[in-house]
């Protein structure tokens, strides 16, 4: 590897280069591209191919071309629409709540107090616990109707996971992601210049005024980044739902990733689950294009300011 790394050592500023050097310059990128194409694009093409087939693993030899039938079925499927709605609710609520809580915690931690380092470290722990283990433990030791800590503290014997499945899952996800948001926002808070804050104070700006017109605008980049990264992962939430509610009761807490998984690995309906996969990819592409544009704009703005 070292050989590849040191190779293009001279860096001529002259723009017109022979084609061969142009390609040599791109050489270090090839392995990454190769991997990404191999593992994401080939299977994706296979998915697209499957999505035009009627193919259920339970009925061997039933595979045949059906055109757009799978897509028609998927859009007519009320469970699919329900799962889509659940995904949107789960993502929006979790990102928003954990961002808000994270902002609050970051503001707390931005002050000087005894044992701040310890408190910060303790606060991060939920994010470090293996998500699968976190989900299982919320299920067995927090929400359990007889032995759960929630009922132990608040009394009653509500079976939280069947009474409020989606809300319970969201509680766990928020608990898991708040520290992440907090860390990013805290980095932003500590990056702001003390002089500006002092200047604001000298000019007679109140605590709230300072926060709203100086801190918050400066934080917006970090808030956006935290929301974006959080959303990418939360939209794909799978472990929490699989381990806590199995999407149930019924389909009350089924989100898209879990529904697709169910169709493929429990319903063995490769055709339909592939069609859903394609739809999800297309939706993601649309959302991602917007977010990427937003991100690049943020980059440009920040480098312009600095």
């Amino acid at each position, binding site marked *: 590897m070292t050989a590849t790394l040191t190779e293009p050592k001279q860096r001529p500023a002259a723009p017109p280069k022979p084609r061969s050097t142009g390609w040599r310059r791109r050489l270090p990128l090839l392995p990454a591209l190769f991997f990404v194409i191999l593992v994401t694009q080939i299977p994706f093409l296979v998915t697209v191919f499957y999505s035009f087939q009627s193919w259920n693993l339970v009925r061997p030899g039933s595979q045949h071309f059906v055109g757009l039938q799978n897509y028609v079925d998927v859009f007519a499927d009320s469970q699919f629409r329900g799962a889509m709605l659940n995904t949107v609710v789960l993502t929006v609520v979790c990102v928003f709540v954990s961002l808000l809580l994270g902002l609050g915690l970051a*503001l707390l931690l931005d002050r000087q107090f005894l044992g701040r380092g310890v408190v910060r470290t303790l606060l991060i722990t939920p994010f470090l616990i293996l998500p699968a283990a976190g989900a299982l433990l919320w299920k067995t030791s927090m929400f359990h109707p007889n032995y759960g800590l929630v009922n132990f503290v608040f009394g009653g014997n509500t079976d939280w996971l069947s009474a409020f499945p989606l809300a319970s899952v969201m509680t766990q996800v928020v608990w898991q992601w708040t520290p992440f948001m907090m860390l990013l926002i805290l980095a932003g808070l500590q990056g702001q210049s003390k002089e500006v804050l002092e200047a604001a104070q000298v000019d007679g700006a109140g605590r709230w005024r300072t926060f709203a017109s100086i801190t918050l605008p400066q934080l917006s980049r970090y808030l956006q980044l935290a929301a974006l990264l959080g959303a990418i992962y939360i939209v794909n939430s799978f472990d929490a739902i699989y381990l806590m509610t199995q999407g149930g009761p019924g389909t009350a807490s089924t989100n898209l990733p879990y529904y697709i998984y169910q169709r493929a690995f429990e319903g063995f309906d490769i055709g339909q689950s592939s069609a859903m996969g394609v739809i999800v990819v297309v939706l993601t592409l649309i959302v991602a294009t917007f977010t990427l544009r937003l991100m690049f704009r943020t980059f440009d703005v920040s480098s312009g300011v600095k």
Partner: protein
Amino acid sequence: MAMIGVATTRRKIQWSFLDLLVVVYALVPVLWIVSLSFKSKETLNDGNFIPREWSIQNYVDIFQTNEFVRALFNSIGIALISTFIAVVIGTMAAYAIARLDFPGKRVLIGVSLLVAMFPQVSLVSPLFEIERALGLFDTWPGLILPYVTFGLPLAIYTLSAFFKEIPWELEKAAKMDGATPAQAFRKVIAPLAAPGVFTTAILVFILTWNDFLFAISLTSTEASRTVPAALSFFTGASQFEDPKGTISAAAVVITIPIILFVLFFQRRIVAGLTSGAVKG
């Protein structure tokens, strides 16, 4: 925000109360897990916050079942190999992005971010089919492949931010002083790049260590099942009366390495995640 305002005693008390509340919120479930893991089977459901009789039986149990030990071995092996490959390939790509100018660079960064956002679940069933056809299903490479792919965007993203900060002129200076290119790289550039590479490795490691979706759908036996997937089988397994204690013990065991990593490198990790955003 006491650094601006004047902290009166009353305000101090208010803040301390808030702090306490916050710590309780984050920590109660965690402490509860630790407490459960040390409870004996009889007192598991007594609802006591502090175990009445301390017992390490749960820990002994999980290390005696092959199910867990083997999964732990798989998890460590697969995560380490995936991290290594992703960081090596990612370093090359990030180096090119940070140092060389070529058309289409921005598109490439865009593509790598796009891959990070690519819904993993839509790849699971085709990967399952392909890996079964190739004989990769339920093997280590079968999991390493998707892990490297989804680790790469993260690696490229953080590494290219770190590499931008490196003063590359030093390399030239070293060569002028008579160092060979290899020496210049080894003695000057490598030490400067190491912290960034290391941070990236930790992030990628955590990503693969935590994965559940691929682990549950691309494995079927102990040959390659990792801890997250193995944990989900603890619930149904009849060999434990109540899996709560053993799950807790397993959770504690597998969380410790991550907590240690992050405790040592906390500042760096945040720097790695934010520098990309701020300096693009």
